[in-house]
């Protein structure tokens, strides 16, 4: 089917008289299908895809080798040492799990708020969520010492252990929160994808593809009764995922806030962590989608308006995070607790001042550029800013974890944290895992929710 080539209009202009179109280029239903399926139906993946996949696979191998080394030698190969027993592994865990928040936010919260622009980006964002949570889960997963008895994390009846996990520990809440989040995100993602997998099934040419996609699509026919229950289930899942997504980073923040380390024991942590998570997650979505839309020529579906909306959210959550930084200082002063005051003074002006100011520059100052429309709508500029945001968010977790632990209540144990080479390789390696999974997703699964995009298009020959 020929795709009608129309000039892409500028859909970022606000016109109160009509809703801005979310699908450009005059695409009809078949046009949308063809556009998305073209990625999968292409005989060969683009060269750049292979190049990036090769690089990512190398990093993934390195990641695997590091984990193997860790299992053989023990956690001593990391820089974690008294008093900073939580070093890079927890920093990376919180970093990744934070990134993993944008997907469910887009698919659940924006769905409940009837934000139609979510339809073009939610699939990729959900996939990103799942891959980010996989990366996140790896760190505590390999940090538990005896990885082969990881199931002791869960309340599994065991004659061998003859005891149960401590349900009043935030670390156990984390196990439940992250594993629930992963499961629910996966269900949500897969359920949303079934109608689109059915599209792939119906267009498949090779026997292999017919079989695999036929199995995955569960025999979906698009029946009205099916859609009725499907939509009901979708709303319920969205309503369940909304508090879930807020709870996950809240509970992650409890890992810190429930302890008594100066700089951690604050009630602002849950909202501040959630805002930071959304902030970094959206930045990652923009960082991934801009190259993807360019590579796969999806400009008609992922329009500048979509990207601009995300950039607005990034700026809003960035301001929330900035406010939280300020409030933390105020509360430290207002509390009158000497150690608390010192902890925050030390963050900004102690021996980790460099990390603190990288964090503030990347998270608070640089996103202010989004006040200007040029930066919100220029794809290269926004990717650069979003990369800075993610650098800043990594440093935020570093600052919180390391500065507080290295300056705890006992000055005799104060210490300057040094990561080892393995720490650095494992962090870089996790990007290999993430990128590999995302590239495979782009090639073999529908990266845009085809059926959802169609449902927000003005219908042809509308009679009702």
């Amino acid at each position, binding site marked *: 089917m020929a795709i009608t080539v129309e000039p892409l209009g500028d859909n970022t202009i606000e016109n109160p008289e009509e809703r801005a179109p979310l699908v450009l280029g005059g695409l*009809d*239903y*078949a046009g949308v*299908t063809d556009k998305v399926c073209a990625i999968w139906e292409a005989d060969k993946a683009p060269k750049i895809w292979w190049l990036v996949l090769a690089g990512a696979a190398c990093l993934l191998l390195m990641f695997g080798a590091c984990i193997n080394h860790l299992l053989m030698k023990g956690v001593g190969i990391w820089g974690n040492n008294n008093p900073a027993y939580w070093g890079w592994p927890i920093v990376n865990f919180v970093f990744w799990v934070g990134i993993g928040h944008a997907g469910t936010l887009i698919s659940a919260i924006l769905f409940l708020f009837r934000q139609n622009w979510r339809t073009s980006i939610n699939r990729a964002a959900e996939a990103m969520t799942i891959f980010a949570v996989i990366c996140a889960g790896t760190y505590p997963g390999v940090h538990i010492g*005896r990885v*082969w*008895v990881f199931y002791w994390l869960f309340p599994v*009846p*065991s*004659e061998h252990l*003859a*005891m*149960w996990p*401590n*349900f*009043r*520990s935030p670390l156990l809440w984390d196990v*439940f*929160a992250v594993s*629930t989040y992963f*499961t*629910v995100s996966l*269900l*949500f993602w897969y*359920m949303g994808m079934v109608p689109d997998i*059915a*599209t792939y099934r*119906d*267009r498949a040419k090779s026997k292999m593809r017919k079989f695999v996609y036929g*199995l995955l699509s*569960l*025999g*979906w*026919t*698009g*029946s*009205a*009764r*099916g*859609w*009725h*229950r*499907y939509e*009901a*289930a979708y709303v*319920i*899942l969205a309503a*369940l*995922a909304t*508090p879930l997504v807020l*709870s996950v980073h809240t*509970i992650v923040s409890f890992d810190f806030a429930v302890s008594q380390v100066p700089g951690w024991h604050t009630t602002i942590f849950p909202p501040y962590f959630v805002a930071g998570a959304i902030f970094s997650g959206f930045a990652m979505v923009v960082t991934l989608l801009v190259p993807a839309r360019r590579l796969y020529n999806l400009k008609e579906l992922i329009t500048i308006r979509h990207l601009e909306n995300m950039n607005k959210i990034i700026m809003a959550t960035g301001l929330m995070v900035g406010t939280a930084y300020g409030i933390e200082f105020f509360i430290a002063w207002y509390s009158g607790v000497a150690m608390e005051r010192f902890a925050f003074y030390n963050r900004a002006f102690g021996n980790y001042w460099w990390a603190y100011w990288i964090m503030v520059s990347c998270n608070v100052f640089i996103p202010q550029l989004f006040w200007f429309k040029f930066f919100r709508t220029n794809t290269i500029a926004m990717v650069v800013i979003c990369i800075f945001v993610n650098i800043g968010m990594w440093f935020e977790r570093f600052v919180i974890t390391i500065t507080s632990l290295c300056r705890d209540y006992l000055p005799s144990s104060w210490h300057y944290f040094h990561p080892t080479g393995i720490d650095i390789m494992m962090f870089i390696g996790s990007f290999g895992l993430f990128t590999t999974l995302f590239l495979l997703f782009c090639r073999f699964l529908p990266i845009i929710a*085809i*059926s959802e995009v*169609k449902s927000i298009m003005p*219908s*042809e020959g*509308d*009679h*009702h």
Partner: protein
Amino acid sequence: MTEKTKSEVSEQKLVGLLAQYEDPGSLISACNHARESGYKKIDAFSPFPVHGIDPALGIPRTILPFFVLIIGLTGCAVGLGMQFYANAADWSPLFPGYSFMISGKPFFSLPANIPVTFEVVILSSALATFLGMWALNRLPRLANPLHRISRFKRVTNDKFFLLIETKDPQFDRTETESQLSSWGASVVEEVKEDLTDQQLPSWLQLAGLMTALLLLIPPVLIFRAEGMTNRKPRLHVVPDMDWQDKYKTQTLSPNLGDEKHPKFLFVDGRAMQEPIPGTIARGDLDTDSEYFRGIKSGTDAFATVSSAGARTSLQDDTRQDDAANDKPAEPNSDTAATSEPDWVTQFPTNVEVNLELLERGQDRFNIYCSVCHGYAGNGDGLVNTRALALAAAGKAQWTAAKSLNDPEIIKNPVGRIFDTISYGRGTMGPYKDQIPVEDRWAIVAYVRAIQGTGIKPESTTKAEEDAVAE
């Protein structure tokens, strides 16, 4: 149609009529017409959820939300109950709960248990939503007659379909077709069910059978291994901490240097160090001679005890260790070897002989002593009896265990009995390391009690003599 397909045609059954519409609007109007004409078994198919199709088809609201609510509430109860059971309750026949004391906080406090409860509610509700939705939709259903129609493949792309099933009482092949066309259908087509569709392909049946058989192998191997004995050590899939890089106590240190310049952990070549001379380990300051050795205090403890030759060298070693702890060995120990120490004849003052002590003594006696000396102390324990039989057959060397009711034995003061239990006598081994001091005194009290009963050893019966002779 070729000859080959004709035989298949005979197995095909008409399921319904499928009408194609080009846009959602005409689909909805067709649905409305169909419903108003009284059709019940109708369904519409579309690439995306078409708004307004539910009332047009008369689809009732799904019960999914109620199902999810019930599962969610159940999840809440299970989540809370699980935490209470695991951390606050000690009862359970199979896997007991474990009252987990953390910083003296209450075992069960709702605020701390909310996060996990919340996550369990979300998880169970989400699973219920996901699984419930597919179950209500009767999916997965991989063989559907609709998938046989090539035109229907565009239902997931850009076309809209209405199906009226033959099961509908109003269904009439020609009448329904003309109605569907008049409601704006671009094409009307028959949907036929091929009964062969319902059979699994033969290769799949074979593959399934093979998989099932292969899956049986691991459990069979496990059960087989469980029912067998094996002299090899068990399989260590994960070595855990079974083997550690460490030197055990009382072993030689390996040479850490090279041949020419041997280096050991400690200069004496041991893997552990001796206590510094003059130090006593915690709890080992056995100054009360009457209590710890059964010898009257003030008299010489060890030098005289070792009624020479009766003890093995090992026993002598331990004796020397003890002596080193207490006081240096007497230079004239060898000469005094035959004389007996001054045994206590009364129980030490800190051993209160009462029923409780006797019961404890009986308990310990039955565990440690009765195997040779017999439950009544007559020297007819099972080990002794069996060993005597073997010795009589020339298969073993054995010195008969003494009857505790032997008049010579009864004469022994309590201190000597205590010493015998502690260090052994003749071929009897020492029980000092197995039985704590207070239990040894309890055994002494019990031995005294059974000696007091005056039960004499029974003369061996004829049968036993026969057994010995064999």
